[in-house]
């Protein structure tokens, strides 16, 4: 199976990927805590970006409400831990089921009734907002005051309960991101992947070739939701507090899409590139501001907005495709382009 996955990947790409991965594995040995937290943030966005990419980039359904799945996943695992002492590794099962169910509902409502394109995006926003308001008023999970996880000291890493130092979280999120990458790669090469791309490019032609559009769109939505919920689990146990206003907020949803769009929607490596570039630039901007003594909330977001604008206007396929060409990693024009 490994061989099949690695078939027709150019050797150059494998080498570069290997080096990159090795670097990521050993960095914590040399880096300070701050650097590691930034990397965790980057990998977190890279992971969610890949999950989002499945729904939007592969299957062509624009979602602007992915914070919903993060929040559901986060609260599900957190509640099980705080109220029942259940380990997040088991709790994530609940996260996946709940998020998948939410995705299925949204998908069903949308696809059964032919809600597509922009309307679908609005529907996703609406559901995320409903969740935000709903959880804000739900006293059992702490409502607007938030849900808090008991914080342990960092002397001991408790992997089973995800209590520990940033380094532990780093390797967990690295594992997740790599896992997502391998999964996406495998999906693109499978029947599901081909069908998704076909639906994205031309739903009519796809139907005429025997593809059940509803079913495959549902697969994409449910898988994307389930994957995203895992990042919610990580979020809950890393930050140790959950506020509906923050977790479900539309700003989160928009943050998630910045990486893949800037990196390159629909490509395999785009979300990862996007996450690295964006987060690094964002943190740098903040560093510069701090050094200059300027403290203006919102400046980072303006910066992100401008980046997004420039990319959409001038590099519609994202940063990764032209970069990939430069690095000589392109096979012939085979790669999936931008979604319709």
């Amino acid at each position, binding site marked *: 199976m490994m061989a099949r996955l690695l078939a027709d990947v150019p050797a150059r790409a494998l080498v570069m990927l290997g080096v990159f991965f090795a670097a990521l594995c050993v960095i914590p040995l040399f880096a300070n805590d701050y650097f590691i937290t930034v990397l965790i943030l980057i990998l977190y966005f890279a992971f969610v970006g890949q999950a989002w990419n499945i729904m939007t980039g592969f299957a062509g359904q*624009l979602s*602007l409400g992915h914070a919903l799945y993060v929040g559901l996943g986060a609260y599900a695992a957190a509640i099980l831990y705080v109220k029942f002492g259940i380990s997040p590794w088991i709790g994530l099962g609940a996260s996946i089921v709940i998020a998948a169910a939410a995705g299925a509902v949204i998908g069903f*409502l*949308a696809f059964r*009734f*032919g*809600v597509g*394109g*922009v*309307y679908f*995006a*609005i*529907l996703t*926003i*609406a*559901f995320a*907002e*409903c969740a935000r*308001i*709903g959880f*804000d*008023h739900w006293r059992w999970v702490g409502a607007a005051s938030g849900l808090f996880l008991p914080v342990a000291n960092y002397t001991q890493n408790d992997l089973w309960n995800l209590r520990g130092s940033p380094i532990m979280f780093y390797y967990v999120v690295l594992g997740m991101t790599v896992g997502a990458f391998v999964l996406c790669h495998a999906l693109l090469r499978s029947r599901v992947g081909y069908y998704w791309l076909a639906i994205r490019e031309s739903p009519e032609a796809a139907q005429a070739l025997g593809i059940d559009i509803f079913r495959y769109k549902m697969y994409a939505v449910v898988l994307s939701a389930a994957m995203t919920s895992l990042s919610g689990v990580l979020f809950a146990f890393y930050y140790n507090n959950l506020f509906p206003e923050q977790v479900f907020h*539309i700003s989160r949803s*928009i943050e998630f*899409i910045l990486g893949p*769009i800037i990196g390159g929607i629909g490509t395999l490596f785009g979300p990862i590139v996007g996450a690295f570039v964006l987060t690094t630039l964002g943190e740098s901007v903040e560093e510069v501001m701090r050094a200059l003594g300027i403290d*203006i*909330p*919102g*400046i980072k*977001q*303006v910066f*992100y*907005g*401008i980046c*997004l*604008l420039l990319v*959409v*206007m001038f590099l*519609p396929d994202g940063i990764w495709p032209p970069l990939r060409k430069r690095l000589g990693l392109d096979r012939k024009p085979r790669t999936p382009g*931008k*979604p*319709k």
Partner: protein
Amino acid sequence: MRPEFCWGSCVPLEVILNVAASGLLTGLVYGLTSDWLSVIFGVVRVVNFAHGEMMTIAMYLAVILFSYYKLDPLLMMVPIAVVLFVFGYAIQHVLITPFINRPEHSQFILLVAIAIIMVNVLLIVFGPDAKSVQPAYAFDSFQIGTLILDATKVYAAAAAIIVAAALFGFFRFTLVGKAIRACADNYAGALVVGLDVKRLYALTFGLGAACVGAAGSMMTLLVDVTPPLGPAYTLLAFVIVITGGLGSMMGALVGGVLIGVTEALGGLLFTPSAKSMFAFGLLVLILLFRPQGIFGKRPT
């Protein structure tokens, strides 16, 4: 024994009617804001995700004019509309038209980017605190039978109806209005006939922005301004337009009223902070049972 309505707690019918009427008036203003969203989509085929943000800008303009120069927002409606018109025209011309051939997603995200920039610039310039307008008639009210209506709401609603009627007349009776409708109906045909479609698009967007500007002035009479109002209103506007039917001005007005009333009653009977959930609930119902909206045409 006064009539009452009970759901959770018991509320006198009077209160319900008052709140509903209040919601209706607010809803008319909502409807106006969404009118042109509908038109912009029908004509330019662009979904203006920066809709709410543009209205928020107009609201801040009205607030500034009132705070510094004591100018009534309703009177300032026209100048603010003009400013927004120029702004909208420029945005369409510079940022959108050159990319008119991009897929729908791209254009949508373009406007998302613009919206992000707008919201955060407003945050930087004005700060997160709420600002409001207190005109001389802020505490007046009209009494019709048992209904007590805020003067501000009545004036705002009246202004909304006037502007909406003006819009309707514009489309029906002026040459430019007809040209815009022609573009919406048949892009290629309009080109063939010699209409400068790009300019008409920019004009449409600009007029939409003007409309939103006028609505923003009216809105300052109803709510306080904060930067996050932008995204909230964009969402509301979309719900209204989808409820009413994309491309239908009457639909936007009716949808606005429906949402206004639903929100007001929902806020009364349940909790005020959960107001928008009812709008979303309505959206889901509409998408389930009549996805083309109340006045929309069923797609063939």
